[in-house]
């Protein structure tokens, strides 16, 4: 049953990534150089919609709190984020979109995947020495959420009700998606774009 769900959910995720342009490196790069933020608006709206419905579903008893999976906070999360961001800007791909792009016929994405497999292997080899630096030691309680979610196995960073906070933050994400301008660099056309009128 879970394999069946993996097939359905995975295929849906891949198809949506393709349709929102996330697997297109031009779209990703124009988001990151701030000349066309449509993909950012898409992602921010998705986080907001997901958050409101997930926490709303939990409050109504429709979504099992135990399905949540919160990752640990440690200094390496920030350092790893910096590295990922650098590579994302260079290539225009992140792990999921790179795989989707390669599958849709982009040859450069195959090289991204090959580099990724080597990078992951390098981390596997370096893991004991990275662990020894303390970069992986939990900070601020490790696996924590911003508020305290009723019934969750994770601690809250604050005592605020985590489900209500999740809905409020979700609404904030939705508002930001609508308020964010499409181009943050006035006067600069999206890099490499054909001359299409602004929406």
């Amino acid at each position, binding site marked *: 049953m*879970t*394999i069946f769900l993996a097939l359905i959910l*995975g295929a849906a995720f*891949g*198809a*949506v*990534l393709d*349709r*929102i*342009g996330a697997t297109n490196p031009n779209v990703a*790069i124009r988001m990151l*150089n*701030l*000349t066309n933020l449509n993909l950012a608006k*898409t*992602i921010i709206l*998705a*986080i907001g919609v*997901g958050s409101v*419905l997930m926490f709303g*579903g939990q409050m109504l008893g*429709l979504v099992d709190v135990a399905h*949540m*999976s*919160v990752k640990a*906070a440690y200094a390496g999360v920030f*350092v*790893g*984020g*910096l*590295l*990922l*961001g650098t*590579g994302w800007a*260079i*290539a225009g791909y992140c792990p999921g979109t790179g*795989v989707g792009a390669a599958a*849709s*016929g982009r*040859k*450069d994405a195959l*090289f*991204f995947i090959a*580099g*990724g*497999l*080597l*990078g*992951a292997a390098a*981390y*596997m*080899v370096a*893991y*004991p020495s990275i662990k020894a630096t303390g970069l992986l030691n939990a900070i601020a309680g490790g696996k924590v*959420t*911003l508020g305290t*979610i009723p019934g969750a196995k994770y601690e809250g960073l604050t005592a605020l009700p985590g489900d209500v906070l*999740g809905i409020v933050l979700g609404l904030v994400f939705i508002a930001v998606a609508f308020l964010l301008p499409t181009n943050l660099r006035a006067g600069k056309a999206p*890099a*490499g774009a054909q001359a299409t009128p602004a929406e």
Partner: protein
Amino acid sequence: MTLDWRIGGVALGLVFLLAVTLVKPIGVSTQFVILDGIIGDAVNAELVTKTEEGYTSTNAYLAKSNGKYAKNVANPLNYSFVFVVAMAIGAAVSAKLRGGIDKAERAVPEVWRANFGDSAAKRYGAAFIGGFIVLFGARLAGGCTSGHMMSGLMQTALSGYIFTLGAFAAAIPTAIYMYRKG
């Protein structure tokens, strides 16, 4: 044709919601480690071994958390690995249905071409280096854009905010510096 962001955003949000409702939050980058493990174990069968309690590995990373990764290397037909394979199929079918990607664009995307020219070798080299940095970073962070940013922020995870801050702090200046031409 790219979907209107309002429709695309709701669709993407619903996929993330369905995943956490039915199984667990979406994540991708761990599967690069699992595929490395599968390849490594095919070359050297000593890499992942069965124990009385489960699986372990001569590699400390695969062996961590009671051999959680080692177990998935030994059994590739697990939810997370199949999810990523299905994701590739979904993207491929969707791209095909909207007419595919043209030949020149497949090798060198237009934004790269505008800034760095037509050389496919140059683009492939950059994509390879980018991939190396992205996956090394994702493993150090313990997740990527899917697991940390999307799933993490959606669940109000502190780690999701730390990751997102780091990722954009590096990605935006790098992209502005590298891709100047319009």
